[in-house]
């Protein structure tokens, strides 16, 4: 999905300096954000970072303490949830337990005052789209988790909203079903052309679903970008650490040129050479972040004296498709390295207590100043 280009010509949701306080607690802190038509925008963050509060403000269940929310150019202040062109899929699904699947899906249409025939037609179509046609007469407690999730989705989508809010849409599903459902969600979104705003704490979910991700921390949006941007070019220590795993080394700038920088790290013998310039004051304290899969590991010493380290393998975790190695450097620092298991036979693989050389390309490290 990350390759998909975003049409920035049509701004659909506009959040302007929105703050939400609950007593002394600032849940959402001066957030400004634009979400474009047809995108899947993920709000990603740990629990209590304010992502759900932001979503609930869009749905109309909370109102901002200050700031403005605009949907399709219209200010949402004072507009109750039942008058917004927005539907939400709840984390608990919130299916009405006393109604059948059919009735659950029809509920929203009945509120619009459509004719019985029209309602029946649209409910039938929607249930076919989510492949629940055979379950129309069942009650929610007679369905499995995945089926309930699809009913919740159908119930929200049948209203043909322009904006669908999804609160941890896959949270209650097991791993296999999640992966399957993720792709189903993306297909549906493309098919119906709805704008999705998804809240999740699961970075994998955000990475596969989103056209863009907004990473939140302590009520603020710390970075907005495509999944690739967020992963490869994190703008802060928080984002680098939160998304995926990373080896972070603290150090000092020793050479700062427009085309490259050299950094001396306390825990690395060799200097780190980075093949792009950064904007930081000279002698500034910086962090170097290197992703585990961007480190090469071999038994022989690499050429050159920079961007390398030597250590002993202390832990190996075999994950099937790849293996995670924890290597202890001479400074005592543990470094995480992932190597894809290209070979089926394990004879050639590096084993415990072996001395190894680590190296990486000059383009791989990310230099972070905040």
């Amino acid at each position, binding site marked *: 999905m990350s390759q998909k280009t975003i049409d920035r010509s049509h701004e659909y949701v506009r959040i302007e300096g929105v703050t939400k306080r609950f007593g002394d607690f600032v849940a959402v802190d001066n957030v400004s954000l634009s979400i474009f038509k047809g995108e899947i925008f993920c709000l990603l963050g740990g629990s209590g970072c304010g992502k759900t509060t932001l979503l609930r403000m869009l*749905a*109309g*269940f909370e109102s901002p303490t200050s700031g403005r929310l605009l949907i399709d150019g219209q200010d949402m202040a004072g507009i*109750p*949830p*039942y*008058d917004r062109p*927005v*539907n*939400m899929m*709840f*984390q*608990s699904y*919130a299916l*009405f*337990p*006393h109604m059948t699947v059919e009735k659950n899906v029809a*509920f*929203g249409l009945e*509120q*619009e005052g459509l004719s019985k025939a029209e309602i029946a037609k649209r409910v039938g179509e929607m249930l076919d789209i989510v492949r629940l046609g055979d379950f129309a007469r*069942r*009650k929610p*407690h*007679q*369905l*499995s988790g*995945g*089926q309930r999730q699809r009913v919740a989705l159908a*119930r*929200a989508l049948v*209203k043909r909203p322009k904006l669908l809010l999804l609160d941890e849409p896959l949270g209650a599903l097991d791993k296999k079903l999640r992966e399957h459902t993720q792709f189903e969600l993306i297909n549906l979104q493309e098919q119906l052309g709805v704008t999705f705003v998804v809240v999740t704490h699961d970075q994998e979910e955000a990475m596969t679903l989103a056209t863009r991700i907004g990473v939140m921390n302590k009520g603020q949006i710390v970075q907005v970008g495509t999944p690739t941007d967020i992963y490869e070019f994190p703008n802060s220590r928080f984002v680098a650490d939160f998304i995926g795993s990373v080896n972070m080394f603290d150090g000092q700038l020793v050479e700062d040129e427009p085309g490259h920088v050299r950094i001396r790290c306390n825990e690395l013998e060799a200097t780190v050479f980075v093949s792009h310039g950064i904007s930081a004051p000279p002698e500034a304290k910086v962090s170097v972040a290197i992703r585990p899969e961007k480190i090469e590991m071999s038994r022989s010493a690499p050429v050159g004296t920079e961007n390398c380290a030597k250590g002993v393998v202390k832990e190996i975790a075999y994950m099937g498709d790849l293996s995670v190695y924890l290597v202890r450097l001479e400074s005592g620092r543990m470094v995480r390295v992932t190597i894809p298991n290209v070979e089926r036979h394990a004879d050639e693989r590096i084993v415990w207590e072996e001395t190894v050389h680590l190296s990486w390309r000059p383009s791989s490290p990310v230099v972070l100043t905040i």
Partner: protein
Amino acid sequence: MNNRGWFRNGMLGLGLAFLYIPILSMMVFSFNNSRLVTVWDAENSPTLRWYVRLLENDQLLGAAWISVQIAAMTATGAVILGTIAGLVLARFGPFRGRAFLSAMTTAPLVMPEVITGIAMLLLFVSLEQLIGWPEGRGMLTITIAHITFAMAYVTVVVQSRLAGFDDALEEAALDLGAKPATVFFRITLPLIVPALVSGWLLAFTLSWDDVVISQFVSGPGSSTLPMEIFSRVRRGVSPDINALATILVLIVATGVVLSTLYMKHEEKRRLREEQMARSGN
């Protein structure tokens, strides 16, 4: 193992005996032919004599009818008011005065009935002097007095039922375009029906067997059944009271057995359906 089983069953038996021997003995004595309550007339018993006499006793039957009417009105009124109070306490968030309202609605649960009775009587008397309503004391005043304390029980039942289900259900309904009133009647109300039914039955029972408060706020010609029984017993226990009590116990027992069977049936159906859902993925 065997010893422990013996001990357990023995204790169970003792417990049940403690609870039910008084009632059983009363039932047995209702078939006693003797006019003296404590003397068993072995020759002519058992007899249905007291049951026949009971049916001829218009005063008792009239009191029973009054009691039924008051209990039904009380239960209905208490369910309406208690539902509103329970809804406000469970769903309206931390508004100003919430703790006060919560304490005040549940206070009648612990208030001595004598106090409630006197307070009610004073209220009705001064109201009548001030605005001329309620005129005198009778079924209306008894019903109002009963509602005030029965409502507290309904509030607690409804509130705990509401606390037990996800408020995302109501939010989902709002989100789907339903106005708050529609949400209440189509989502909230159907979900709390079990609480309303048990609240209604509870209020009915509370009103049905109240003597103390009724005593204070009743007027001429509005004696409830418990009041009637109480005044007869004070003149000396007559065997037809035993017969009446036996009938009441049987009615209550039948109700309890039926509702238990119904709940068991529902539970079984639910389990079966859940199993079906799991196997039918």
